[in-house]
């Protein structure tokens, strides 16, 4: 992909982030009534309300508030949590690693399982394997990931105690321990996306198989793995990568529930508690972080897309 195109994509991403920042900022102002009173809760004293109002800067004009807030955000200062003295950045940094690791691993699971199952199904259309993959994919899409998580826990952690049922272990506790705590959450999170990818890959492979250039390659003597790798997969990957980009963001959202199932204290847990407590600075930080991650993921996908598709690269 040309540098100009990367810059344009980057610009688009920044614009989206700026708009997200406005929406995020406006969250507080969308609360019906006096936000400070609502946030403080029913049993709050007048002093609490005043403190919160000052904390959020609600006593100043909206535009001033936004500019102050945004300049803070740009300097990496998202304010402090309303109920602890910790800064939002610290609170997020503390819990982000498990969530990000699980999300990335889920993407890996989704791509490995989804793309290979979809490819096999697409190459053997109408076969028993194809029908099995299609059925499983349809089921996988209709299945809530947290239910799948429970079933996995019940089979692999309770009935057989092969893997830990809950919790997260940091890498410092050893690679094996770390990984064993990640296998079930990442699988549960990734399989729904794997199902979407499998369905899509199957369709794309089936479509590529009908293309004249595949026939040309066969007329040249190409077959088997050579044909699949060089002529089929590369071309089928172009639309699949787009879907993967859309799905990657969804995994970040899905991680919220998966954390709850596995009792992992990550970003999702932080966000859910913040919603229950109306801890707005934390929610704003969480939403912004997610937006940044999604924009980054999309940028990576765009780059991958350009790498796979020469038409984009040279355009």
């Amino acid at each position, binding site marked *: 992909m040309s540098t100009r195109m990367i810059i344009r994509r980057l610009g688009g991403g920044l614009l989206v982030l700026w708009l997200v920042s406005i929406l995020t900022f406006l969250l507080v102002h969308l609360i019906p009534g006096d936000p400070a009173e609502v946030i403080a809760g029913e049993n709050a004293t007048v002093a609490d309300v005043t403190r919160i109002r000052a904390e959020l800067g609600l006593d100043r004009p909206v535009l001033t508030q936004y500019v102050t807030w945004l300049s803070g955000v740009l300097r990496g200062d998202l304010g402090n949590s309303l109920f602890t003295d910790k800064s939002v950045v610290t609170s997020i940094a503390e819990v982000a690693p498990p969530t990000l690791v699980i999300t990335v691993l889920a993407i890996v699971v989704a791509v490995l399982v989804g793309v290979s199952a979809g490819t096999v199904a697409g190459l053997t259309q109408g076969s028993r394997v194809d029908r099995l993959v299609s059925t499983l994919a349809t089921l996988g899409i209709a299945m809530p990931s947290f239910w799948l998580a429970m079933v996995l826990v019940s089979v692999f952690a309770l009935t057989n105690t092969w893997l830990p049922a809950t919790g997260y272990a940091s890498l410092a506790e050893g690679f094996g321990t770390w990984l064993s705590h990640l296998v079930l959450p990442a699988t549960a999170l990734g399989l729904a996306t794997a199902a979407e990818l499998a369905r899509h890959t199957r369709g794309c492979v089936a479509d590529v198989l009908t*293309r*004249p*250039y595949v*026939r*040309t*390659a*066969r*007329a*040249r*003597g*190409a*077959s088997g793995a*050579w044909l699949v790798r*060089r*002529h089929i997969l*590369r*071309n089928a990957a*172009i639309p699949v990568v787009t879907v993967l980009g859309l799905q990657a963001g969804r995994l970040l959202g899905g991680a919220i529930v998966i954390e709850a199932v596995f009792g992992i204290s990550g970003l999702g847990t932080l966000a859910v508690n913040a919603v229950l407590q109306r801890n707005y600075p934390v929610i704003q930080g969480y939403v912004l972080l997610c937006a940044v991650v999604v924009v980054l993921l999309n940028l990576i996908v765009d780059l991958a897309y350009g790498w*796979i*598709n*020469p*038409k984009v690269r*040279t355009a």
Partner: protein
Amino acid sequence: MTPLLSVEGLTIDLPGRQPGLVEDVTFQVREGHCTALIGESGCGKTLTSMAILGLLPAAVRVSAGAVWFDGVDLLACTPRQLRRIRGGPVGMVFQEPMSSLNPTMTVGDQIAEARRLHLGERRKTALARARELLERVGIPNAARRIGSYPHEMSGGMQQRVMIAAAIACEPKLIIADEPTTALDVTIQAEILALLRDLQRDLDLAVLLVTHDLGVVADFCDDVVVMYAGHIAERTTVDGLFYQPGHPYSSALLAAVPQVGQARSRLTVIPGRVPSAGGFPAGCRFEPRCAHAEPPCREPQPDAPLGDGLTRCGRVASGELTLQGALRG
């Protein structure tokens, strides 16, 4: 002299639904010569050419016949043996270069592919050879073009790339399926000139599938005229133009305003080609034939005519003499 390629009694079915998409097709391609396979679209000529290297769509089957190439029956080959022939001693050129080239692979890699597959060459060696081939087919700046993708080239250049890939392993036979149909008129002439050039220089045999009689006149030795799934007439190019042996052939000639002009379309024969399953019981051309007589509604066996054959009983019996486009 035994022919290089000999197709014998080739019959192609759509199992369960449609027997006789192609029926009892027999013809030869001589070493270093060009045989044309002509007919309107839907007459089975492309199916026939695909069947030779076993490239028919999955739903379609060869139910009878043999395809002898260099003493081997290709239809009886194992997939492995067939792969050695494809792109090796037999190269193929397809109709639409744009969709027939892989959009995600450089043209260099696509030309080099056959050498890597058949000769086991390493990528670097094969690419060096690909560069020479690009030069050979008349693409300027070959060293740079080797890294281009198909979409960065014009249709004519793409077709040159296809030809370069087809001759990469020094084949004895090229099967070209309407190689000029999708191209502009001026480009068509260039590509044909290139093919003729290569044929002469490399002593290639060519099976040219086309519906363009101008192309046939320019460059072929033998002609197979197909109509509605079987052969209407098999003759030499002179035979076809001076004394066609089937009313369909003469109708084709009449439909061309002036032989020798490029881009001649076959459009003014009244009626339509019947589709498989709806073939008349007698002569398949009878409903559209200007010379039809009641006996034509009886099945017509093929009869020898000169060195070739005709499926018109009236011509075979000498009852009917057709006029060619040219007179001797």
